[in-house]
């Protein structure tokens, strides 16, 4: 598996997934990336990805409240059932979500951008700074599919009606 963080972000719609999934995608970079750009969500999930990577999800049973002492178990729902039940910790079923602001600031710092972020009414697209004395808007967009990226570009052009710089991971 290619452990590029950009590829990982393109592969996880919503940029929120369980630690085990991020770890598989990011490999050795997981701990660094988690500390730098991921944040814990306040909620837990009700299903856990199958360790066999077959695309199915195991159903989590048991109370997942922080104070609960009972074990958290995930059971296979396949017919026929192929996996043994998994015993999980609260941390393992707490999703980690991308912190866009931190990622934007890091990119801005790397490219020497002027600070300033801004949300757009365009999914997964955000201004992360500006460039030069003309304050050209620098935009980051992360799309999971090519046709979504193609849609974002004209939307940005119509919305901004001025030159802009666009950063977008493109898988390969």
């Amino acid at each position, binding site marked *: 598996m290619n452990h590029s963080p950009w590829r990982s972000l393109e592969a*996880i719609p919503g940029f929120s997934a369980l630690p085990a*999934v991020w770890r598989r995608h990011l490999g050795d970079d997981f701990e660094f990336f988690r500390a730098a750009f991921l944040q814990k969500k306040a909620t837990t999930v009700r299903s856990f990805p199958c360790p066999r990577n077959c695309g199915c999800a195991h159903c989590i049973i048991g109370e997942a409240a922080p104070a609960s002492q009972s074990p958290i178990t995930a059971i296979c729902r396949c017919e026929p059932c192929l996996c043994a039940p998994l015993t999980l910790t609260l941390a393992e079923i707490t999703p980690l979500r991308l912190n866009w602001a931190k990622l934007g600031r890091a990119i801005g710092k790397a490219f020497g951008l002027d600070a300033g972020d801004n949300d757009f009414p365009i999914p997964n697209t955000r201004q992360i700074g500006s460039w030069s004395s003309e304050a050209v808007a620098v935009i980051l967009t992360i799309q999971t599919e090519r046709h979504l990226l193609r849609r974002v570009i004209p939307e940005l052009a119509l919305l901004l009606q001025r030159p802009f710089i666009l950063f977008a991971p493109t898988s390969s």
Partner: protein
Amino acid sequence: MKINSTKLPAAGGLAQNRLTLEPLRADGLDALDSEGLEGISQITLVEIEVAWENEFQEVIVRKAADIFGCAAAEGGLYDPIPKSGCLVQAVFLIQFAESAERQMVQLRPPGTLKIGPYPNAGLVERWLLTRGFALAH
């Protein structure tokens, strides 16, 4: 959707192989090319299930009489096989040269293959091996 007779898991000539759907993503329509596959005149993808391991364990199932044809008819507006996500299952309709009716084949990696009437199983297996759907362990 009904499949008359099933083989589960992949048996016969593919018992030692790992099944994958990645040729659909890598080769697109070429993965369904029946040229050089004697006994098969046409292979059509009619269903694909894709799963993402995001927080919500998102799954989409795309069905059409011809998934690649449908995407092409819309001018290539979207990728018929998403570029990300796990290809969980696909259903194909295969037109065999000796059969009047198309036959349904369901492939679910890494080891499940459901085929209709048994006599054509060898042809299906040859297609899967030739186009990279069945890999050596």
